């Protein structure tokens, strides 16, 4: 049990990982992440890669929606932009370490086109504009065949570094995992500074934010740009991981998936992003296993129900968490920790 820790300076008080115990844990975590694909087997490595992509995308959405209060219904489409951008960049011979930032930038740029007009007004216009962007971009993905390959999609070559191909889950893992860690850390850092505080201020009470000298327009735009940048990078990684970009991957259901992830995890919380994305990555796998068992037990039609079942469960999770635990898994985690912090001396 930890008795308490005392911060001797303000800088120490502001540090992210302030106790020795936390730093040791962090080191162990990083070591575990590095060893994971060698220990975890191919299925778990696959899941870890998928989770890494979901983490980055969900973090971006949480910056926008959870922290700044801008509801985006088009997050998946912005991922799509990143994914196609990587496909196009690779075709032009641009290496992945440039293609990924480009994917993020492309997504952010398109985000700005949608965002600038709709951010000038309050409230739901933004949500509707992102919904519109979702459908319009989906249409572009389908119809602009010379670039996107239409409904058949575009192939994405493996990321390669000096002739070394990052093909196969285990190798891609070492592209995705470090990026996921870095980008989560970046998102966390954001909220230790004036930029992140301004986002939260805008969400909580935009009028007082303005009185403090925060330009609503500039900061909403910044939040949206950061969110779409994250989506773009996640989409690019998606391309390198699945090696293909097709329009139906990046539709409204995926956008709803990410909304569900941040609600279930906890709006406006990086810990919540991690918990929510993990939970939501595992849920479909769990459902698939469930349906598999059902089939094994003689319900041959069970497979048909997988897609609708998934949708029902996602929807129920969104509604259920909003009604019963609006602060999400992150709050449950905090409660549990508080309980054990002083356990067994106080309960």
């Amino acid at each position, binding site marked *: 049990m930890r008795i308490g820790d005392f911060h001797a300076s303000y800088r120490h008080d502001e540090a992210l990982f302030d106790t020795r115990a936390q730093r040791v844990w962090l080191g162990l975590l990083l070591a575990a992440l590095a060893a994971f694909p060698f220990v975890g087997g191919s299925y778990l490595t696959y899941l870890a890669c998928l989770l890494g992509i979901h983490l980055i995308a969900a973090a971006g959405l949480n910056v926008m929606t959870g922290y700044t209060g801008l509801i985006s219904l088009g997050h998946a489409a912005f991922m799509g932009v990143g994914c196609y951008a990587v496909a196009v960049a690779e075709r032009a011979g641009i290496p992945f370490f440039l293609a990924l930032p480009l994917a993020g930038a492309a997504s952010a740029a398109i985000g700005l086109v949608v965002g600038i007009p709709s951010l000038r*007004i309050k409230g739901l216009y933004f949500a509707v504009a992102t919904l*519109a962007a979702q*459908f319009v971009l989906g249409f572009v993905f389908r119809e602009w065949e010379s670039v996107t390959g239409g409904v058949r999609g575009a192939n994405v070559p493996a990321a390669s570094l000096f002739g070394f191909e990052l093909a196969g889950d285990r190798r891609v893992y070492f592209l995705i995992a470090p990026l996921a860690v870095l980008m989560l850390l970046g998102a966390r850092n954001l909220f230790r500074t004036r930029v992140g505080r301004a986002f939260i201020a805008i969400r909580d009470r935009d009028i007082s934010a303005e009185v403090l000298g925060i330009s609503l327009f500039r900061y909403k735009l910044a939040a949206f740009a950061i969110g779409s940048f994250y989506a773009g990078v996640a989409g690019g990684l998606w391309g390198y991981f699945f090696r293909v970009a097709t329009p139906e991957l990046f539709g409204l259901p995926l956008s709803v998936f990410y909304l569900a992830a941040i609600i279930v995890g906890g709006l406006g919380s990086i810990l919540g992003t991690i918990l929510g994305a993990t939970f939501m990555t595992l849920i479909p796998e769990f459902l698939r296993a469930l349906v598999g068992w059902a089939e094994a037990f003689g319900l041959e039609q069970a497979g048909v129900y997988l*897609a609708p079942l998934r949708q029902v*469960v996602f929807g129920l999770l969104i509604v259920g968490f909003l009604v019963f635990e609006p602060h999400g898994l992150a709050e449950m985690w905090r409660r549990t920790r508080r309980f054990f912090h002083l356990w067994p001396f106080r309960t």
Partner: protein
Amino acid sequence: MSGAIDWLLLAEFSLVGLLSGGVLALIALGFVLVYKGTRVINFALGEFMMVGAYLFWTANVFLALPWWAALALTLAGVAALGALVERFVLRPLAGQPVISIVMATIGLGAVLHGLAEAVWGGANLSLPELLPRKPLLLGEILLPGQVLWSFALAVALIAAFTAYFRWSKDGVSMRAAASDPVTAYAMGIDVRRTQRLTWMFAGVTGAVAGIIVASMTSLSPSLGTVALGVLAVVILGGLDSIAGAIVAGLIVGLLESLTVAFVGGQARDLVPYLVVLVILMVRPYGLFGTRDIERL
């Protein structure tokens, strides 16, 4: 089409578009009703439509009930659904930030969508033709009967709802409760009841619109997607104005029809969203909207 515009084609598609906008206006009314009554934007309205159409199919085709009995059963069903949603989703969320409520209706939509697919399957079903097909000839312009009748039906329903809202006791209470729930409560209006009523009405308008749409096209779990496009345009017209809703519905209908005529069918579903994006660029406060003055 080389050079000259085909005026006849333009006129015909414009008229058909405006007329088919009637159903869209009915959908728009569904959004406006709920917004006026409870200050909630119901992203699940499309799913209400879809569920209504499936219920009708079940009663009318599967159970082979006559259409009026099937309709009565359907409306009772969706009204019950609306009441349940109000009681178990919206009421617990009262006082929560807008974002939570909006997302709850999105979640609700996903649940209904998934359930419908599980129960009725993902394939297209078809409803019997409820509306007469006999077309109307206006000079050289041919107006399909279904479109004409759906328009008439939508107009009748919209008029009925508007009258109800304006003159009936419940309608007045609903408006009072919407503009100031606390005061309305203090004046002896049962606010919970009016909110429940609002959601039941929303279910009913949605279901009727859903049945009309399904009978003219076909029935699948994604029937309700059309509603999102209508919502996009309704927001531009102003969510609390019935007139705005009607105009929005007609505009979407007109533009969709013209797009089909001059651009191609695959671009049709895109129209409302493009309209929204373009209008937001040009007139960021919406078509009729004014900058609201806020009391600080």
